[in-house]
Structures are given as structure tokens and as C-alpha cells.
């Protein structure tokens, strides 16, 4: 028995170490690369005021789809925020996905909705649409009332009714910045091969918001939220500097995606799965390759979408569990893409990346974290080994995280007070104590629970996005 364990431990160490070294090296490289940005930036004093002058007088239209379900208490303030965007030509399509509360009535009352016989063409099949409404007060607002079908179904309905060539879907409690919209639509205009673009997601929890604008950026209050902020910061900083340059590689998992409508219809919209956005992008990839359509899927670091993240451990666990199952579902459904040269970089690099790092990663991590106590229990723990493990897996990670937080702050976002930054840094030291293990644990077990998934009715009270 002991020798079996011995053997297992011996071989597995390789995996664990290689994994941590590989991932951490990657992060380190990104950090060093962004250091270069900082160096360039520091040579010049950025005068933002005059950037305003260059704001384009020409806009590009975009449809923003907002699926909602049972949000009677918050929908009005959320929408009012979205509607204050100073963007000349856009529409906000709110899709009421068969709410069982008073959401629809609240909408009708607060936005002077009026039912119209606006033609609804079912390009993508959805659950029954009961009515389309326009707002007498807000010419940019359109509301679709339909039977419940799940978030993906609501977005599909939104796509059906949208009138502009590009769209994005966000939650009602997310905030977009005006500059983001301009930047997004520009990208599609400048290059006609672009079929999808992804922007950055930042954590809204804790920030001061007034009338749809984030006026002060603060770190969130609860630990669970803070840990997520750190996580997002690290992930997106890496995304901005490295993956952003490797175009068709990124599968726009999470972030927030902006897509071309015509292609969305060709791939029949969103699928009934848990990993909606990622699945959508992957199928888009496949469609374009299979139909020999020249395409680009890019990641643009400028547009920012501020999102509410789960504020309790329980909802966080549920979210990550869902993400995990979604990831597996997407990988399985599109498995033929992996290591398939037909799908070029996405198949040869992107997919393998997702399998090895995103999928296997948490499993390896989890085993890694469990390994130490196990070794100790069996008296196999060598202090030298433990130290090295600590350095490679933990300390390195902490330094990287702190570096990302600092870099992010210097390059991209300004926290209102340094105390917030210190708070984030402090929490970075404790990420490995509990947070990382928890996530690895959830991911690990969700992998096995995947079999036992039950679909059916997906009642959501908070729409969540995959990352």
C-alpha cells in the first residue's frame, strides 16, 4: 500500500510542479511586459482633457440586450442608469424572461411603455413572445415580454428583435461606460473581419455609483468580494498584455462580449448550456472556419463593463460550480476542435490551453494543496520539498498577484484611496489560505458532478457571467 502511494505521489509531484511553474511563469512574463507600458507612460504626462476633443462626431449603432428575471425592486434604477449613456444611436432591449413577480408592470409604469405591433421575426427559435413595447419617454428603450426560457433564450429573443448590426448582452445591474460603447463599435467598423470582440470586466461591488456612472472606485467590503476583485485583476491584466495580442486565440470566455448579429443568427444564437458566452464564441469560431469565412475575434482592453459579483460564499460557490460545469460542457460539445489543425490557432493552441490550464488546472491545484498535508501525515514530508513547494506554488503566486494589483492601479484604474489598494494587497497574502483551495475544491468536485447535472428550468435571480 505504502509503495503504491509512494509511486503515485512521486509521479504526481511532477505534474504539480510543472503546472505551477508553467502558470506562474506565464503570469510573470505578462507582468514584466506590462512593466514596459508603465515605463513608456511615465515618460509622458497624460492629459486626458484633450482626449475629449477627439471624440468622434460619428457614432456607430449598437444593440444592448438586457435579459431580466424577477427584478421588480431594482430594474427601474438599473435601467435608468443604463439609459443615461450619452450615446447617440443605440437601443436597449430589455427582455422580461417570464418574470413571476411584478417586473413587467413596474416597467410599464415607470417607463411609459406602450405595446406596439413591432414585427418580431423569429430568426432564432425562442419561447413565445407575448408582446413588444416601446417607451414614450425613452426612445432608445424596447421591452420584450416573453415566456420564461432561461437567460440564453432571452438573449436570443433580444437578438431577434434588435435592429442594429452588432449587439452585446449584459446584466441589468452592470454598468457600461460611454467610451466603452464608442470603442466597441469602432472596432467593428475599422475592420470588417472582426466578428466578435471582448472587453474587460471590473468588479462593481463597493464602488460609488451615481446615475449610472462609477464616480469613485473602491475595494469591496466583504472578504468574498475582495478575493474576487484580486482574481479578476490578475486575470485581466494578463489578458490585456499577452492574450490580447494573440488574436483568434482568445475564446472570449467571460469578459463581456460584443458580437455581430448576422453571424449570431447563422449559428442559431445561444445554446441551452451553462457556459453561454464561451460556447457561443467557440461555435462562432467553428462556423467561420467550417464555412471559410475570414474572421477575427479580438480582445480590446479599453471597454469596461462593471459587474456585480456574488457577495456571499454560497452564491460564489454556486457560480463557480456552474462555470465549471459550463466549461466542461463546452469542451465536450466542441471537442473535435481540440488539436485539430483545421481550426488553426484556436484548435491547436486555444483549445489545448483550455483543456490543460483551465480544465486540468484546478484539478492539479487541488491535488497539490492536498498533497502537503497528506505527505505530512504519512511522514513523507521533506522540509526541503515543502519549502520549495511553498516558494513555487504559493509565494510566487503572491508576488505575482501583488504585482498585478499595483500594475493595474498604475496603468488602468485609480482607486479613490490608497487604503483600498493596501487592502487588496493584504488580502493577496491570504488568498492561498482559503480562497484558492475553495475554488480548486469546487472545481474539482464539480467535474464529477457534471454527470449529475439537471437542466430543465433555470430560474435565475442573478444573471451571472462566465469567466
Amino acid at each position: 500500500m505504502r509503495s503504491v502511494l509512494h509511486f503515485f505521489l512521486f509521479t504526481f509531484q511532477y505534474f504539480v510542479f510543472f503546472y505551477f511553474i508553467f502558470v506562474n511563469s506565464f503570469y510573470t512574463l505578462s507582468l514584466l511586459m506590462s512593466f514596459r507600458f508603465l515605463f513608456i507612460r511615465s515618460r509622458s504626462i497624460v492629459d486626458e482633457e484633450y482626449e475629449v476633443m477627439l471624440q468622434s462626431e460619428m457614432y456607430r449603432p449598437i444593440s444592448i440586450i438586457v435579459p431580466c428575471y424577477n427584478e421588480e425592486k431594482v430594474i427601474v434604477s438599473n435601467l435608468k442608469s443604463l439609459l443615461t449613456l450619452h450615446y447617440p444611436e443605440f437601443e436597449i432591449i430589455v427582455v422580461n424572461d417570464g418574470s413571476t413577480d411584478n417586473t413587467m408592470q413596474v416597467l410599464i409604469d415607470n417607463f411609459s411603455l406602450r405595446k406596439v405591433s413591432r414585427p418580431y421575426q423569429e430568426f432564432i427559435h425562442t419561447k413565445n413572445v407575448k408582446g413588444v413595447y416601446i417607451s414614450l419617454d425613452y426612445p432608445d428603450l424596447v421591452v420584450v415580454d416573453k415566456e420564461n426560457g432561461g437567460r440564453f433564450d432571452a438573449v436570443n429573443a433580444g437578438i431577434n428583435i434588435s435592429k442594429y448590426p452588432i449587439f452585446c448582452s449584459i446584466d441589468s445591474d452592470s454598468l457600461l461606460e460611454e467610451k466603452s460603447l464608442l470603442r466597441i463599435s469602432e472596432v467593428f467598423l475599422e475592420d470588417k473581419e472582426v466578428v466578435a470582440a471582448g472587453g474587460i470586466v471590473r468588479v462593481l461591488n463597493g464602488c460609488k455609483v451615481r446615475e449610472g456612472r462609477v464616480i469613485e472606485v473602491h475595494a469591496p467590503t466583504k472578504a468574498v468580494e475582495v478575493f474576487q476583485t484580486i482574481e479578476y485583476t490578475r486575470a485581466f491584466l494578463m489578458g490585456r498584455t499577452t492574450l490580447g495580442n494573440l488574436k483568434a486565440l482568445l475564446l472570449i470566455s467571460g469578459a463581456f462580449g460584443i458580437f455581430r448579429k448576422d453571424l449570431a443568427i447563422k449559428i442559431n444564437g445561444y445554446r441551452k448550456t451553462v457556459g453561454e458566452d464561451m460556447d457561443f464564441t467557440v461555435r462562432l469560431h467553428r462556423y467561420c472556419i467550417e464555412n471559410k469565412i475570414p474572421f477575427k475575434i479580438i480582445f480590446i482592453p479599453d471597454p469596461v463593463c462593471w459587474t456585480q459579483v456574488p457577495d456571499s460564499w454560497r452564491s460564489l460557490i454556486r457560480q463557480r460550480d456552474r462555470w465549471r460545469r459550463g466549461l466542461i460542457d463546452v469542451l465536450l460539445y466542441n471537442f473535435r476542435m481540440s488539436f485539430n489543425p483545421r481550426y488553426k490557432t484556436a484548435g491547436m493552441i486555444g483549445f489545448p490551453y483550455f483543456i490543460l490550464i483551465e480544465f486540468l488546472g484546478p484539478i492539479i491545484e487541488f491535488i497539490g494543496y492536498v498533497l502537503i498535508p497528506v505527505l505530512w501525515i504519512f511522514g513523507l514530508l521533506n522540509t526541503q520539498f515543502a519549502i520549495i513547494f511553498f516558494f513555487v506554488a504559493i509565494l510566487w503566486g503572491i508576488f505575482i498577484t501583488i504585482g498585478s494589483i499595483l500594475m493595474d492601479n498604475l496603468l488602468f484604474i485609480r482607486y479613490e484611496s490608497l487604503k483600498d489598494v493596501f487592502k487588496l494587497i493584504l488580502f493577496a497574502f491570504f488568498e492561498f489560505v482559503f480562497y484558492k483551495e475553495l475554488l480548486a475544491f469546487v472545481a474539482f468536485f464539480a467535474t464529477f458532478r457534471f454527470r449529475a447535472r439537471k437542466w430543465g428550468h433555470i430560474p435565475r435571480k442573478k444573471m451571472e457571467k462566465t469567466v
Partner: protein
Amino acid sequence: MYPVFLTSHYFRSFIIFTLFLLLILDSVLFLYLVIDKILTERREKKKRYSREKFTEIIASKMFDDELLLEIPKDRFSYEVVGDLLLDTLRNLRGDFANKVQDLLRKNGYVEYFSKMLKSKRFYIRGKYAEKFGFTRLSEARQPLVELLKVEKHPYVIKKAVFALSFVFEIDHLDLMYEKISEVKDLGFKYVEQIFINVIRRIREFRNSEKGMRFLSLYAKLLDSLGRRALFEALGLEKVYEAVPIIAGYANSNDPLMRISVARALGRMGGEVSCNILKQYLKDMEDWRVRAVAANFAGICDISVVSILYSLLFDPEPTVAMNAAQTLLQFGRVGIEFLEKAKRNGIGLASEIAKYALEGANLA
């Protein structure tokens, strides 16, 4: 028992080296952040205070005939006041603008900006070139032209051409064109802005022929993105003289180009424009061209109504909706056609017609 590499000296050195590197990096960043924050806050506070102080002063001074302003000699306040004055020029024209420009002249800003144009740092040259342009002073012309003649850095060229577009003389167009073509990757927004400025000023020149020649040269040698930006700008500014130039691209293979042509001509009107739009209404290659043409077809004479009617049955709903909205612009005749479609009751077309008519009643 343990992976061989763990005991390797090189491996361990590598790890220690990397960690050490990161530690230093983090510490440096940390210090940088703290210092930067403190400095920035101080600077912002100073700036805010200065701005408030001078806002009151300047506002009241504008109504004095005697334009004496005590501008402090310290660099910081000088900049703040300069920026305030430039801000005003963004908002005001006429009498007040002239007063502000006088203030700028009298207080040495022309010399100051000219001096900055000679800076060794490219960012400074660019920033002040831009500011110089915002002054819209004729004195800015010569320094900017001198700068452009020798400038090699693309960032500065961009800013300088942009600046010059506020104050250029017709003879400078060739230089501007030449320098702009040296720069790769200009960006759509930026190009538009220059064009808008150029176009606005061209009309002031009595010799619009040279201006038009410039524009057609530009159009020929720009890439398609730049050309589209140019056309959109011309359309928005209603430069009717440019219609022949734009019409020359009406048969482009690129649907995006055809769309820009449609939008530009649609904003300007006229017989040539209308004929091209009519052609686009039948564009089979790309429904978006039909849609945009349908959107702007209101500029045409009544003969287009029958084409619009047939577009109500277009398989693309956007095309049909635009056609319906445009039909409303043709009064009685258009409404009759819409009623006809509504009565016919053929699926989407009928719904669209009904929706358009409803909309007209709501208004």
C-alpha cells in the same frame, strides 16, 4: 523519491532569482504608487484651486474693454490659465472668442507654445502642437508648418496636422497631406476630425477649387477606411461640391464603401445623389446597402415611392422598416402605399406598414 530537478542547483537558483526579481518589482511599484499618488493629489488640488480662482477672474475680465489680466509667472498657474482659455474657445465664438484670443496673445502664449514645439521630448511637442491648434490663432500657422516640415515622430505628426487643420492656409494642404501619409495606423476617429476641420475651413476660402482638388487627391490615395471617414465628414458638413467626388466611388466593390457613399450623399441630396440611392435600393449583394439607401431615400423625388413600396416586401426586416419610415416622408402618397401594404396582409410587410402608420399617429 523527489523529482530530480528539485534538488538541482540550477532549478533552485532559478526559483530564487525569479522570486527575488518579483520582490524588487513589487517594491518598486509599491513605492512608485505611493509617491505618485501623493504627488498627483497635491497637483490636482493645486490645479483645482487655481482653476476656481481664475475662472471668476477671467469671466469678469471678458467684459472689460481693457484686457489686462494678472497672469502669474509661475509655470503651473500659467498652464492652468492657458488651459482655461483654450477651454473657452471650445465653447464660444464671435466677440468673446476674439477677446480670449487677444488674452492669449497679450500674455505670451504664442511664444510659449512656439518654444514648446522645439522640445526634445516628443510628447511635449505633440501636446503643445495640439494646444496651439486649439487657439485658432493665425500666429500658430507658421510654427506648426515649420514643425511639420522636419518632424519625424508619428505621434507629433498626428497632433501637428490636427492642430494645423484649425488654422491652415490653402497652400498648406499639400504639406499636411504629405505628412499624414507618412503615418501608419491613424485611426478612424482622428482622421474624421481632421477632415471635419479641413472641410469647415475650405468653405471659407473663396478658392474652393483647390480645396476640392485636395479632397479628391486625398480620396484617391487614402485607404478605404480613410476614404469612408472623409465621405462621412463631407456628408455631415454638407459639402455639396464634393458630390461628384463621392459619386465616383458609388460602384465600389466594397459594401462598406457603398454604405458610406449612401450616407454622405443621402445627407446632401440632389439629383445625382438620388440616382445613386435608387441604384442602391436594388443592391442585391448586401442588404445593409439597401437599408441605408432606404433610410435616406427621402431626399429623392416622388418617383422613388414605388421602389420603396416594393422594399416593404424585402426579406430583410431592417430594409423594410427603413423603407416604411421613409415612405412616411412622402405625405399622402407614401401613406397610401403603406395602407396598401397593410391591407394586403402578407406577413411581415403588413406588420411593418402597420407599425409605421401607428408611429405616425403617435407623433
